[in-house]
């Protein structure tokens, strides 16, 4: 398994002055891998300063592990070089696809949950783990469509990928809630379908209700229903590192840190309640 790091936040450019000049810190930081590949200047300096006294995790958005395109070997070499330099606590990406014909859509597109997809993803995750020299965590994505071809529920698909490829799961609680709302499944059933011993990290984030669907926007505080689902997740999976993502309309650092503190408080309440 992976170590428990506490309650972290995403490393974002807007907070660089607070982090670099004032030395402000969360328990740990997650960085978007692609923003730091072959990069120098201020971003690299901030990453090194933060890494000097806090754990860092690399979170990719471009692995495209479900794509039928060949794996991007140069990209994997670059990720490995960054990982060797930064020594992250772990490396994660998404259970999705985003490229076709080498054309990157820069999106986290959902897969059909079929045996064909499952075999394809498992073989790719296995190769990725070999090339990176480590186990990875795969995150469930928010989605806005489902396929007629799907034969498995998403949670069974995710659990089976993790089991067959021997990888771990980054369970995005907000994404579970968003997709459950958009597709009409039971979020609690999703949590029950995920094996306890595979979850290495939680994601928490805000979303927007557009009336016809929920959109995973990362531009707001975590909503109350997602906090409730987070408490259910802590009840099921126990003490797992959590990470608050905030990528748009980013508020001052204190506000993001307050969300991480809220996660800590909810976790404490749940775990102390269980202990009694």
């Amino acid at each position, binding site marked *: 398994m992976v170590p428990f790091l506490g309650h972290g936040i995403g490393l974002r450019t807007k907070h660089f002055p607070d982090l670099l000049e004032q030395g402000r810190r969360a328990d740990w930081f997650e960085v978007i891998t692609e923003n730091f590949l072959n990069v120098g200047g201020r971003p690299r300096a901030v990453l090194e300063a933060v890494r000097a006294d806090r754990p860092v995790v690399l979170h990719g958005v471009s692995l495209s592990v479900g794509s039928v395109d060949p794996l991007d070997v140069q990209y994997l070499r670059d990720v490995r070089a960054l990982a060797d330099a930064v020594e992250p606590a772990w490396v994660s990406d998404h259970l999705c696809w985003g490229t076709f014909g*080498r054309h990157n859509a820069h999106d986290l597109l959902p897969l059909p949950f079929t045996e064909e997809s499952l075999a394809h993803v498992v073989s790719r995750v296995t190769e990725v783990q070999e090339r990176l020299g480590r186990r990875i965590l795969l995150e469930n994505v928010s989605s806005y469509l*489902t*396929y007629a071809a799907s034969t498995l529920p998403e949670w069974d698909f995710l659990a089976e990928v993790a089991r067959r490829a021997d990888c771990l799961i980054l369970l995005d609680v907000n994404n579970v809630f968003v997709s459950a709302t958009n597709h009409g499944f039971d979020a609690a059933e999703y949590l029950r379908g995920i094996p306890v011993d595979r979850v290495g990290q939680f994601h928490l984030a805000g979303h927007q209700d557009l009336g016809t*669907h929920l959109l995973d926007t990362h531009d707001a505080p975590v909503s109350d229903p997602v906090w409730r689902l987070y408490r259910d997740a802590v009840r099921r999976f126990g003490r797992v590192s959590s990470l608050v993502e905030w990528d748009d309309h980013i508020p001052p650092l204190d506000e993001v840190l307050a969300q991480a503190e809220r996660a800590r408080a909810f976790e404490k309440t749940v775990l102390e309640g269980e202990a009694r």
Partner: protein
Amino acid sequence: MTLAELQGLLHGRITGMVPGREEELTEEVLPRPPLEALERVEIYARMYLYRLVDAVAEDVPHTARILGHDAFVKVVRDYLRAHPSRSPDIGQVGRHLGAWLRTRERLRPDLPDLALLERARSEVRTALDAPVAGAEALQALPPDTLPAARFVFVPSLRVLRLQHDVRRLWDVLEQDAGESPAPTPGETTVAVWRQEFKVFHAGLSELEARALMIAREGGSLEEVCAAFASEPDPAQAAFKTVLSWFADGWVAAVTSQGA
């Protein structure tokens, strides 16, 4: 439909590269009230365009401002058809925009040059770090090896050949200092570089531009100095220029075969 066929179908629609095929999409994607299957696909298509518009605008904010929101979205949509993203880094999606804008008609004529300058500044901001050499690196070489000395430049130096001088336009936009000045046609060479975390740009004289080009292409100090032969005091002009490269942090190392 195989996984490959399904991804091709959806990707073509979302990116706008393969329009149509509604019937197949309706068969493959499930509707769920209140949204039909195609409306669900459309969510991704909108996100694709606006995510990439935002990424390009981050590179070239002043170019985007001059065009205005709607025109910029249209420009980026057309640009993406010509230059779909091939990089895992979304920050690279706008790297061909300036050159591509030259192929567009009915634009402000200096807009491609402004975009090239902005993109270069963006690249320089995060270019790889490198140690910076001082002038003493040159002085440390044995005198007889000096003519053959060659320069290694830092990765955060860019040299642009522009068709307009857009420096004043960039200043006005950067400082939000009123109306944009009229385009200034004329070939201009601009160097863009970084010191610590700050990005600079400056125009180069024709002589310096030629000398720098020679040096960046691996020419020797002797060849660099020869670029100043038309000057009243060639040695002094060359010395002054080369020293400014060190002072601005452009030089990573000086090498000499004899050293």
